[in-house]
């Protein structure tokens, strides 16, 4: 029943501080927002914190929200800005502290594996593959990585990506060409 209500209408109800509408909206978009952030920052804990922050901003901005674009485009734009700012401040903080991210801990697997219980070797292999891909993604410049994640995992059009990142369609095309070329190079030795 919840699926019948468009997100834009839910936003109108959230503007009136309707908690139940907000709960529906969060449950509907939490997985996609969380994974967009996770693929971008490569850190599970940070992704969870940032995803919560995105929904906090949705709640705060509900009264000023104008349904000009699709809700997903609007919320992805909030997410992208938050991610870019977070990485900028994290890079600044790195000057003053040690590297706090334990990469091994970030690529916990098994949550989305199939029901058949995988062997310890399979799990390790899966973990290693996921780590290689994540490392390759993390090595891309921020704009390229965001464009690639939005295209590859969310299937957005160049037009939508341009609106989210705040650039032209041709710039998105160029970002993706460069991102794919870099990944080709970095995943050259990757084997299934």
């Amino acid at each position: 029943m919840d699926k019948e209500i468009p997100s834009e209408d839910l936003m109108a109800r959230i503007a009136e501080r309707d908690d139940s509408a907000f709960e529906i909206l969060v449950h509907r978009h939490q997985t996609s927002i969380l994974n967009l952030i996770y693929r971008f920052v490569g850190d599970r804990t940070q992704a969870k914190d940032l995803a919560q922050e995105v929904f906090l901003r949705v709640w705060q901005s509900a009264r000023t929200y104008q349904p000009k674009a699709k809700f997903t485009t609007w919320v992805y734009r909030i997410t992208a800005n938050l991610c870019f700012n977070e990485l900028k401040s994290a890079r600044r903080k790195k000057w003053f502290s040690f590297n706090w991210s334990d990469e091994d801990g970030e690529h916990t697997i098994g949550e989305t594996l199939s029901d058949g219980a995988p062997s310890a070797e399979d799990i390790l292999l899966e973990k290693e593959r996921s780590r290689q891909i994540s490392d390759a993604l993390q090595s891309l410049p921020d704009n390229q990585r965001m464009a690639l994640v939005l295209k590859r995992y969310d299937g957005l059009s160049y037009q939508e990506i341009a609106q989210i990142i705040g650039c032209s369609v041709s710039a998105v095309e160029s970002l993706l060409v460069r991102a794919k070329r870099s990944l080709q190079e970095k995943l050259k030795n990757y084997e299934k």
Partner: protein
Amino acid sequence: MKCRNVQKKLSAYQDRELEPKEQEQVKSHLLSCRACREQFAELERVWQTLEELQEIRPDPWFYRHVVRKIKEPREQRLFPSLQWVPRLLPASVIVFILLVVGILTGTYFGNILSQSNIFLLHYKQASETVFTSMRVFDPAPPGTLAEGYFRMVSYKESDSR
């Protein structure tokens, strides 16, 4: 279409972002050109590889965490790194109070002692001790036979009166 042009458009072709006419032109070129076809196959391989990146699921309390974040004070959200300050505050206040009390007590007693000349007395006694001990190096140190002899020699009748 030439290979060079096709290779420029391969990414957009893969994303189905070309105009329908261009999309067809690239498609037919790939059928006839082995080099471009291999390049496209490599692009597809990498695209498929990205599928292996694990997806994560939000925990069941995600919504509750969001609600808690909405309700928590603004300062706490803006400066999460300063959350330890209130915990350290009592300790630093105690240290500060102890320091102030120490300085005031020290100043008070210092003034009293200096006014009651106890320091001066101590100084006098100390200087006498120093002078007495220095007489050890005299030709006739106190309490020795030499000192007794000198006293006897220098005895005058007028002194006894």
